[in-house]
């Protein structure tokens, strides 16, 4: 088999924490500890293998890199101390920067989440799901929210979401939740994004 290091080098240089996978010893703990192991086709270890094997398309289009929920379980258990979660997110971010969307729903949710932070300086349990649902238009959004009703109700029951958030005007004026100095925050975030873009270029 022809052994091509080009993609591995690209990952080491351009992906956030990408060079850390060099110390992976392929033990398999990460894939087997991940709570989403049933959903992932490959899991972190096999993705590192694919990177080493130069399989760029397969890696960057892989939904697994966007399934990571940041639970940290693999990362605290990795016997080699690889910051697995950071690499998974780094890969997802890198894919998006290349115009590749490994998993559409996660990308949309991430966008809603991020825009919420950017606009108001905080994560709002009401704003994020609303933004997420409305990304494909009002009708599709209503359908999606109905489809996710059970999750919403469960969240309210567990007091993770407050019903009053959905009562106007709270929905329509997310601006009321803005933190002080949101402009400064935005300048910081813009700067961080510029640094990232330079690295990924």
């Amino acid at each position: 088999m022809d052994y091509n290091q080009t993609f591995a080098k690209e990952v080491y240089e351009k992906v956030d924490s990408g060079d850390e996978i060099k110390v992976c010893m392929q033990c398999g703990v990460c894939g087997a500890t991940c709570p989403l192991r049933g959903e992932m086709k490959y899991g972190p270890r096999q993705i590192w293998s694919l990177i080493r094997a130069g399989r760029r398309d397969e890696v960057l289009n892989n939904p697994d890199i966007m399934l990571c929920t940041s639970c940290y379980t693999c990362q605290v258990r990795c016997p080699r101390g690889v910051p697995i979660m950071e690499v998974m997110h780094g890969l997802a971010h890198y894919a998006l920067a290349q115009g590749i969307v490994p998993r559409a729903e996660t990308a949309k949710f991430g966008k809603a989440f991020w825009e919420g932070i950017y606009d108001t300086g905080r994560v709002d349990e009401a704003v994020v799901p609303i933004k997420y649902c409305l990304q494909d238009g009002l009708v599709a959004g209503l359908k999606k929210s109905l489809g996710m009703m059970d999750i919403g109700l469960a969240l309210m029951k567990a007091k993770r979401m407050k019903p009053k958030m959905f009562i106007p005007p709270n929905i329509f004026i997310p601006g009321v939740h803005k933190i002080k100095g949101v402009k400064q925050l935005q300048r910081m975030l813009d700067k961080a994004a510029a640094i990232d873009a330079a690295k990924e270029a």
Partner: protein
Amino acid sequence: MTDETKKAILVVGGGMSGLSAALEAAEAGYQVVLVEKNAYVGGRVAQLHQYFPKLCPPYCGLEINFRRVKSNPRITIHTLAEVTSIEGAPGDFTVKVKVSPRYVNDKCTACGKCADAVSATIPNPFNYGLDQIKAAYLPHDLAMPLRYVIDPSIAGTDEGQKAAAACPYGAVDLGDAGQELSLNVGAVIWAAGWTPYDPSKIEYYNFDKSPNIVTNVQFERLAAVNGPTSGAIQRPGDGAAPKKVAFIQCAGSRDENHLPFCSSICCLASLKQSTYVMEKLPEAEITIYFIDIRAMDRNEDFYTKVKASNKVQFVKSKIAMITPQANGNLILEGENTATGERFKAEHDLVVLATGMQPNTALSQVPFDVTYDPYGFLTSGQAVIGVGTVRRPSEVVTCVQDGTSAALKAIQAVGR
């Protein structure tokens, strides 16, 4: 120079490393004082069922060494003894040693009448707590010295009195207060050995939650004829003969969160222990879960031999989780890195191949010495490290290292 004008050599720890160093130095004509923390010498090797790679009983080798010790007037042994301070420099050290009371003097004939007389029991340290023994006990059948010990927990009680009254030789001495020794020696050899890594620290293995998860050192005792089951391999939980035995390699070793180094002997220990299962329970299925099998040099032949038996299934996976079941079985989860499959497998006995932690990482030398980041003694120091306090190793390497330590000590004494 005669023996008398030369200073003695102190050896701390009477395992294979310390015994080898002591014997080599004594046989070269030097006075040797051996200080051993346990009530007997031999170290952890005394607790093994068989030796890899030849699968002979470790007592063969130990017996030969014991005979060499007994026939050599230059070696003095203090058991139940520990070094409390070291001062000076090579050529002239002053060492303080604390000897704990044994409550049994050298009149003991090991008849066992004291043990018959007492009813109190303690967890048996020789069997890694797998069973209980009387609080008046012989550490093990072939202990050297062959002398009983009264556990301090009963020394001041009626139970202690019963033991004293039962001894026909007046060997039980409840007034034993131990002693403090001060030694002037020319060299100090540190051979304090190792401790199995504590598996309860690997919390996702749930070691404390199931009696049917044992460590490799406990498994040696389960296979040994002088062990808690007289050599029958049984599940500690219910005494049943296991049908599906799993060995989990690198349990704590090669892990940044635990012992970051390879313990070097546990692959061979599990290969060896798989032959115990083959011999004693021919029907049982055996699986070894590993990252990679490390059987170096001539030991690779042993690996090849076990593999060729076709009785052991080798699964390339570090186990990520052990979940005890209500029926006492264990579910193991991992990712088979050869096939990519993420699996769950049920076993009825699990052996954790725990690694070697140097005792110098757990209890330091009372002298200004340097350690590597894992607590192993580094070379070229005033106190001479030997064996498993220098690096994880099998017995052959420890014996070689013992000779080398004896030579270094002889040079220091000659200064």
